[in-house]
């Protein structure tokens, strides 16, 4: 059987091509796959479409990829005041941005994960977010049609992983990670800890192994921003 556990960060990202669509977990400094991001920087991939809540904190998180101009398009809810590398690229029109309400970002990824083809929401009706989207009235409410967000890869950060791919997350470092894990064609998890199969209680598994395609152990890289 194909092993999911890879021995190095560089190996686990080796096939990520230029132009890939990649989801990056994390929120506000917690749960970012910083080691995988650094591996992508070393690899030097270009023209990435990044799907992530934030756009980095100075050189931290996605900041490094914007610094090296590896990202051409972003789908995000809150790029962030300290995402200076992103903001510079954005001002220079080297990066394009689709701003999405945070919960709708979650739901569009979940729709992709769940095999749904689109959904109606009242969120964003009458705002810039509705521009270009189908609007209709359902159950007496004005709604817009939101479409799934798919990705080639999800880069996520876990606390524990077993070698089958079952994951747990630490506290609020969970955030977007379980949703992205479900939504991408290939999900790569960096885990702080590799644990024996069977050591995570089945009822406490936070991301079942079916969603996780590659695992690499990586611990310690932290950006306080």
């Amino acid at each position, binding site marked *: *059987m*194909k092993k999911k556990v890879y021995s190095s960060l560089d190996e686990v990202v080796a096939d990520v091509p230029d132009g890939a669509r990649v989801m990056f977990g994390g929120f506000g400094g917690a749960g970012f796959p910083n080691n995988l991001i650094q591996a992508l920087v070393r690899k030097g991939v270009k023209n990435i479409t990044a799907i992530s809540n934030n756009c980095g904190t100075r050189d931290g998180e996605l900041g490094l990829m914007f610094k090296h101009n590896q990202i051409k398009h972003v789908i995000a809810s809150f790029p962030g005041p300290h995402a200076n590398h992103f903001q510079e690229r954005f001002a220079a029109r080297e990066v394009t941005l689709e701003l999405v309400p945070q919960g709708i970002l979650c739901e569009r990824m*979940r729709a*992709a*994960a*769940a*095999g*749904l083809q689109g959904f109606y929401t009242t969120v964003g009706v009458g705002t810039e977010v509705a521009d270009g989207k189908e609007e209709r009235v359902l159950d007496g409410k004005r709604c817009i049609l939101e479409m799934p967000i798919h990705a080639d890869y999800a880069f996520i950060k876990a606390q524990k992983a*077993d070698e*089958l791919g*079952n994951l747990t997350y630490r506290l609020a470092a969970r955030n977007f990670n379980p949703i992205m894990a*479900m939504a991408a064609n290939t999900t790569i998890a960096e885990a702080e800890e590799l644990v024996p*199969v*069977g050591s995570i209680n*089945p*009822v406490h*598994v936070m991301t*079942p*192994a*079916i*969603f996780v395609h590659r695992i690499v152990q990586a611990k310690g890289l932290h950006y306080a921003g």
Partner: protein
Amino acid sequence: MPDSAVQEKALLDKPRLTREQIAQRAALELPDGAYVNLGWGIPNLIANYLPKEITVYFHSENGILGMGRRARPGEEDYDLIDAMKVPVTLIPGASIFHQADAHLMTRGGHLDVAVLGSFQVSEKGDLANWKIPGAKGSGGIGGAMDIAAGAKKLIVCMEHVARDGAAKIVKKCTYPLTGLACVDTMVTDLAVIDVMSEGLVLREVARGWTPEEVQKLTGAPLTTKGRVPEIHLPRVLPGLLEEK
């Protein structure tokens, strides 16, 4: 070619694969490491015939990944059942989740293989497996429509011909549909057939059967790609799953 009624009665008396043997052949379609959902009936027997060298992970739509063997007498826990209400066990590395996540897996393309029973399959891979026309009672869909819509590969296990002699593999289903163009492969008591863009391709026939004879019991045209080998069943190792 007959659409539903079978002319040659004699063919109906030739030996065929048993239900257990259909399951045994279908088990060979499961790749190592696959995530698999098994439906009611023949598919549910497949777990007993997995080749020893492969590991597959069984999914149940009530929220289990990594189902193991059935519970032994005295070991039953009625909070740990499969979709058929049968008490089961968990293998190491199993996980439990709610029903919406279970069907996110079925519908979202996360299962590598699903195996379902069926009343009819059309030459385009349409599936009709949830309701017999005119049957009394409410009927019930269960998880079949979500599974049919979402599995990466959908295998149907069924008898090739209905008890009344009618073809179950047809040009167009007359039974209420479960899903359109969703079946990839059929394993019957007579043949292994792939649903391809060009139509139904006969991959294997049961021992003692010719492609022509199978065609006579099939309500839609079969094509072949060269010689059609016989279905090869490995030596049966009953209770294999028990030992794992």
